[in-house]
Structure formats: structure tokens, C-alpha cells
């Protein structure tokens, strides 16, 4: 069974990617071959005026290139061959002579975003599942399927450097604000809007994109401004990495080269750097860490048979110090449990609650939690003095722990 299906709807080809047997779509050799064939159809079939590229997965578009393929590279030449194949395919998307619209819902990273960048137009869903980015530098490599070339041309040099050098994915809203995607829509109408956009593009519509504002363009559209931006970015990278990571510097060079000498030269530079880095020690180490982290996330932390998970909706934590408050914070953030902290003084309880709240606030700041969720969740943190010394015994305190229903957990940290 293939991963891609092409269906023609009212003159527009709907190319859907759904890698069989996998939770996520990645781009592998077979996917590339199938896409190549569909691009041929798109180009030669005169009944087709345009296309949309959409995912059949519920929460991801394309999470990137097949990492297994990348790990099995043995030398620089193999790496170069692989990256060239990818570049040619993405390049082909821009030369079929018909508009292609990326319909993005869920994770769209690395090669997935590079494919989307090669499309004529990008529609994404406003869902919290949607995230787009080029995280290659985190694996010690660089975006090498045109990402270093197309992103700066689409959203401006400085914005593109932010995305590529940090490798941090953007949430839907950020992606829209920065111009990585052209439209944000509700998931329900994603396909409809993408099909509509493809039709309009086929009819000759050219979307207007104003990026960076006047000052931005003044700085970025001249050699002096660009040189300044690159030298600042280089300094920042060296300061941050201590010069230990070659990938961000390589990405900078690929971008700069492309801006100076054109896309084609830029792609050559991308490919050369990628081939060098992909088989280098730093990347190999980072990839190991990546797999180890992934495995750790799956690890239950329990040796032997893993017992069934129990839903804990209420937690009493006795002792609001370092341990207690950390457990409180995690219980609220992860399990959304109602947490009651106890300690001998209310000041200690207040400090514990504040510690736990800091945990939530960090998530809010990092964009991992909405303001609404933060407000809701912090209401799960409350506390009181221990049984001793309280003026009026509450019902909660009078419940012996043995009679608590199994969905309530208790932790005790004498301090």
C-alpha cells in the first residue's frame, strides 16, 4: 500500500500523505518516489489545474525526513547523494508549472516544512497541535532541502535566522504572524480553503505578501544591512554555543551564500555543509541523545510489568518544602489533580504554593500552556496548616486515609 493518494476534485489534485503503519508521516525513499510520480501526473495531466498537499494523519503533516535513512549514512558522498535527491524533489515542486497549496494541520517540521515552503501557498490550522519549524540544527545538521534559501526569501532574513538558528518550532499563531503560513483556519475547513486557494491561484490570483515593514525592508534589502545582520547573528551563535556546535554557523553560511549568489549556489552550499555535518561526530552524538530522550519518554519508570494507570484526581501533600511543592506543581500541570498542600505554618504553605505556581508560570511563558489553562490550573493549588494547631477541624482532615477512595493519593514529606 502506498503512502500517497491522488484524487482529482473539480480540477484540483488532492495529494494526501498517510504513511501506512506509522503514527507520523516522514519522508523516506519510497515516499519521495511516489511524490515524484504524482508531480509527473500533475504536470502532464491537462485536466489538473493545481494541487493541494495534505496529511491523512490526525495530528501531523510531515514531521521531517526519515531519520533512519539519515542515521544509516556511511560517508560524505552518501550524504551528498541523499541531500541532492531531496533538493531535486523539492525543486521539482516549484517547476511543475501549476500551483500547489500546502494544507497543514499538526506538526510540520524539517523536510515537511521545506516541502511546504516550496508550495505556492500555505494554509494552516489554528489548532494547538499545529507547529512548524526547521529543527535540523538541534540534530547537528542544517535544513538542506532549500529551507535555508526559501524561508529568508519568504519571511525576511532576520525572522528566518530566528527560526533556523534556534531550531525551535513555531506555534500556528506565531507562524502566521511571521508569514511562514499565509492563512490560519479552523481544522474543519482546512481542506476546503486549501482547495479554494489552489483554484484561485490556478485562475491567476497572486497573493500579496508584505513582510518586515518599511524599516525591515530598508535594512534587509541592501548589502550593508545584510552584512550587519549576519555578523550579529554569528556573534550571537558563537556566544551561545561557545563555538562547539558547527551546525548553526553552517546554516548561517548557507543562507548568506544563497543571498549573495542566488538560490542555486545557496543549494550547493546547503548540500555541501549537510554532507559534512551529517556524518560528523557532533551530529551523531546529538542523534543519539535524541533517540535516548525519546526512549526515556516512553519509559514507565517501573521495572517489570507496568501496572494499569490510575487516575489521580486529588492529592494531599504533607510538607510544602522543596519536594512537596515540586510534586504539587507536577501533579497540577500533568495530572490536573486537585492538590492540597499542608505544612506547620501557612507561610510555609504559601511558599510551597508559590513554588508550584512558578512551575506552571514557566509553562505559560514557554507557550506550553494557555492563559486560560494557567488560570484554571493554578486554582488547583491550595493548602492549609497541618491538623495540629488548626482552629476548626475540617471534614477533609477527619477522613482517615484508609477510607479515602482509591483515586486520591497522599504524599507525606516530614520536614
Amino acid at each position, binding site marked *: 500500500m502506498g503512502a500517497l493518494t491522488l484524487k482529482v476534485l473539480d480540477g484540483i489534485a488532492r495529494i494526501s500523505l498517510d504513511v501506512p503503519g506509522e503514527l507520523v508521516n516522514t519522508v523516506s525513499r519510497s515516499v519521495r518516489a511516489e511524490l515524484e510520480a504524482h508531480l509527473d501526473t500533475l504536470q502532464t495531466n491537462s485536466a489538473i489545474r493545481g494541487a493541494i498537499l495534505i496529511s491523512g494523519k490526525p495530528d501531523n503533516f510531515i514531521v521531517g525526513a526519515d531519520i533512519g535513512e539519515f542515521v544509516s549514512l556511511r560517508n560524505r558522498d552518501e550524504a551528498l547523494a541523499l541531500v541532492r535527491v531531496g533538493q531535486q524533489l523539492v525543486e521539482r515542486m516549484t517547476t511543475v508549472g501549476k500551483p500547489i497549496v500546502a494544507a497543514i494541520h499538526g506538526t510540520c517540521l524539517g523536510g515537511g516544512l521545506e516541502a511546504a515552503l516550496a508550495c505556492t501557498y500555505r494554509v494552516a490550522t489554528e489548532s494547538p497541535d499545529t507547529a512548524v519549524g526547521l529543527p535540523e540544527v538541534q540534530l547537528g545538521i542544517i535544513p538542506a532541502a532549500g529551507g535555508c534559501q526559501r524561508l529568508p526569501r519568504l519571511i525576511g532574513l532576520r525572522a528566518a535566522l530566528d527560526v533556523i538558528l534556534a531550531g525551535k518550532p513555531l506555534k500556528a499563531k506565531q507562524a502566521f504572524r511571521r508569514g511562514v503560513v499565509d492563512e490560519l483556519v479552523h481544522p474543519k475547513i482546512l481542506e476546503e480553503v486549501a482547495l479554494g486557494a489552489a483554484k484561485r491561484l490556478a485562475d491567476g490570483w497572486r497573493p500579496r505578501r508584505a513582510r518586515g515593514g518599511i524599516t525591515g525592508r530598508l535594512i534587509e534589502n541592501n548589502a550593508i544591512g545584510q552584512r550587519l545582520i549576519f555578523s550579529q547573528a554569528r556573534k550571537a551563535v558563537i556566544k551561545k554555543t561557545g563555538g562547539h556546535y558547527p551546525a548553526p554557523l553552517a546554516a548561517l553560511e548557507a543562507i548568506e551564500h544563497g543571498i549573495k549568489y542566488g538560490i542555486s549556489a545557496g543549494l550547493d552550499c546547503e548540500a555541501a555543509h549537510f554532507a559534512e555535518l551529517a556524518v560528523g561526530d557532533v551530529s551523531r552524538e546529538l542523534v543519539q541523545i535524541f533517540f535516548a530522550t525519546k526512549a526515556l519518554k516512553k519509559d514507565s519508570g517501573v521495572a517489570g510489568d507496568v501496572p494499569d494507570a490510575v487516575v489521580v484526581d486529588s492529592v494531599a501533600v504533607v510538607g510544602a518544602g522543596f519536594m512537596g511543592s515540586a510534586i504539587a506543581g507536577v501533579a497540577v500541570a500533568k495530572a490536573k489533580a*486537585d492538590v492540597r498542600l499542608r505544612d506547620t505554618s*501557612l507561610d510555609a504553605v504559601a511558599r510551597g*504554593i508559590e513554588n508550584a505556581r512558578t512551575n506552571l508560570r514557566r509553562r505559560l511563558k514557554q507557550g506550553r500552556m494557555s492563559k486560560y489553562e494557567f488560570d*484554571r*490550573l*493554578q*486554582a488547583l493549588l491550595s493548602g*492549609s496548616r497541618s491538623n495540629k494547631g488548626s482552629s476548626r477541624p475540617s471534614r*477533609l482532615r477527619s477522613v482517615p486515609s484508609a477510607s479515602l477512595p482509591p483515586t486520591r493519593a497522599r504524599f507525606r514529606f516530614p520536614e
Partner: protein
Amino acid sequence: MNNGRVAVVAGCRTPFCRAGTALKDMSAVDLARLAVVELVHRANLDGDVVDEMYFGQVVASPLVPNLAREVSLLPQFPKHVAAASVNRACSSANQAIAQGHDQIKLGHASVVIAGGAESLSNIPILHSRRFSEFLVRMSRAKSLGQRLGLVASLRPRDFVPVAPAIAEPSTGESMGQSAEKMAKLNDISRDDQDRFALRSHRLAHAGTEDGRITAEIAPILGGGIDGVITQDNGIRQDTDLQRLAQLKPVFDKRYGSVTAANSSPLTDGASAVLLMSEDAARSLGYQPLAFIRSYAVAALDPADQLLQGPAYAIPKALDRAGIDWSELGLVEMHEAFAAQVLSNIQALESRQWAEAKLGRARAIGDINWETLNVMGGSIAIGHPFGATGGRITVTLANEMQQRDMQFGLISVCAQGGMGFAMVLERS
């Protein structure tokens, strides 16, 4: 219909703090949520059993017009707990409790959380009418010329903001002016007012010291607040009559007697009360503090004695309860102003007043100073408009249990010439 009674099962409130002080950085919603979360824990309540919520608020934020819904969206409750915010001025929390009572009596609900919240530190400040109009027109302007014309039409005074006043929309008379007027009409002396205020502070202080008041308070533990707040901050233990007598009258500077000290202060706070049908309380294993026997509301001409409403509502509620004033073991009267409470008392004790205003042959009843506002009242504790009714209800229910009293009465005066009264009973 539910033939059983409606139980007051538990209740608590935030500390009441003078506006602009300790709680100024918390919104009314924050305060109400805090009181409710604490109530849930103290009552060991399963949020899933709650059917409805009602909260009183007088000066609502235009951005959060329905505070009660924001409270019912607390993670402790399922999202289908419907909620309404109510406004009957200073008796808003009482109204919320009354509404919860009604829903339970109608059989629409078994468990209701009712209360109120007010942040007078966070009142909405409005733009002037002309500036609002300017903004609306700007949004409709089509050309640069039109916009420039509109900007040119603005005058400096248009930028002066408007704060909501504590005054009657109908007569324009402020609450304080009404209290001042009532002091004169009813011959309530400055000394009597100051003595009453002092009593309020002394009793509230005693109740705080012996822990009866603090037991009702949900401590505030951080969350934008420095340190821990466990007590009301308006209660003065150090004041005396000489000091009170030195204050200048506020509303009639030359001939007046109403001062800042014998009035309730602008206050931030929230309260929450857990109501259940008698059956629900039994099946969920709760021992109610008290039951709601009756309630009544009265309204009179705001141009007359604006804050005399309780004197009309009390006999109505007693009639509905089928009991006599003399059977009351405890009375909690909201203290908006000393002049107002003393005027209400004067009316209740007067045969002539009962005859003239109610067509009754006998006075409503004499005040027993031993059982009136036994832990002080709003003058000392403070008065967050929307929340006070919840505080009084919890205090009365707790004290009725503490003193083993069968009947207790609540009265609250409210803007618009209204009065609210409720009778609580124990088994």
C-alpha cells in the same frame, strides 16, 4: 417541587480588606474562586455533585459581566455547572443565596454554591460620553479627512474619565448623604453612632482573637499577594470614643454626624455558601449548620429614608417564617452606616412606626444587644458590596450552632431603597 428544607451546609470567605490595600491586585473573580476552592476543601465536597452557582456582584467589570460562570469553570467542577451573577445591590449575595434556595425548592437543583464577590479596588473607570462617541465614530470613519475632523473635535475635558459613584441613579443622592439625612430625621446622635461603631470594632476584634471569625476565612496564600493574609484588615482594636469623636463628618461638613469611622469602608472580598436540599445533605453525609426558614425583600421610595428597607423586610420575613421577633436567638444586621442600623432599630422598636408604616398595632420587637451582631459587623469587618450577604449568612449559621439557637435573622439594606431579610432555623 421539593418539600424538604434547604440546608446551609458550610461556608467561607476571603479576608475582607479595605479597597486599595492587601487585595488590590486580585480581581473579584480571583477572590470568589479562592473562597470557593477553600469551601470545596473544607467541606470535602465532590465538585461533580454541584448543580448550579449564583454569585452577587454590584460593580461588575464590563470584561467579566458574569462572574459566577468564571467561578463555576474552576477545575474542581465539571464544565456543565451553569451559573448566573445577580445584582440586588448590597444584598446581592443574599439574593444569590435566595435564588439557590428557590432552585432547590423547585426541584431544579440539589446542591448549589451561592455567594458574592466585590473588588472595589478594581472598579471600571469609564471614558466620558463624548470620548466614547468619538471612538465609535472613528471606527466608522471612512477617510483620513473624516478622521482628522473627528480628532480636531476633541476637547481636553473629553479625556476626563468617569468613575461609577455610590449614589442613587434616581435621586443622585449618595449613600452617605442618605445616612446623614436619616441621622437627622431620626435624631440619631453622633455619640450613639460612634458608640455603635466602637462596639462593632470591639466585637469583631474579640471574634478574631478567639478564632470564631478567622475560622470562616480562607487564607490568601500568595498568588500576586505578598505573604499570607488570614484576617480582615479594617478591624481596629486600638480605637476609642475620644478618637472617633475627633473625626470630621464627611457628607455634611458643618452639621453632619456621619464620619468615615461610623460608616462601612470600601472593601475587597468574596464569600461562598454551600446550599443543599435536606435530602441531598443527608445522602451525601453532611450535617447542615442551619436551614433557610424564610426570606423577604422590601422596597421603598429612594427619595424617602433610603436605607430603612430592613425595617420593612424583617416583619415580612418573620410572617413568612410564622415566628415572632421574640423567638429570635441571634440577629445579624448589615452595618452600612451606624446611623442606618440605629434608624432601622428605632423603627423596629417603635409602636408608632409599626402603626403608621405597616398598619400594625404592636412594634416589631425590641433589640437584645446581647444577641445583635455578636461578632461585630460591616463597619469594622468591611463591606465588599456583593459579598457581605454571604459573610453574614455564614456567621449567623455558625453562631446559631455554637450557641444552640433555634432561630436567627439576617437583614441587609440595599441601594434603591431595598431591604432583604432571611430567617434561618436549626432542626
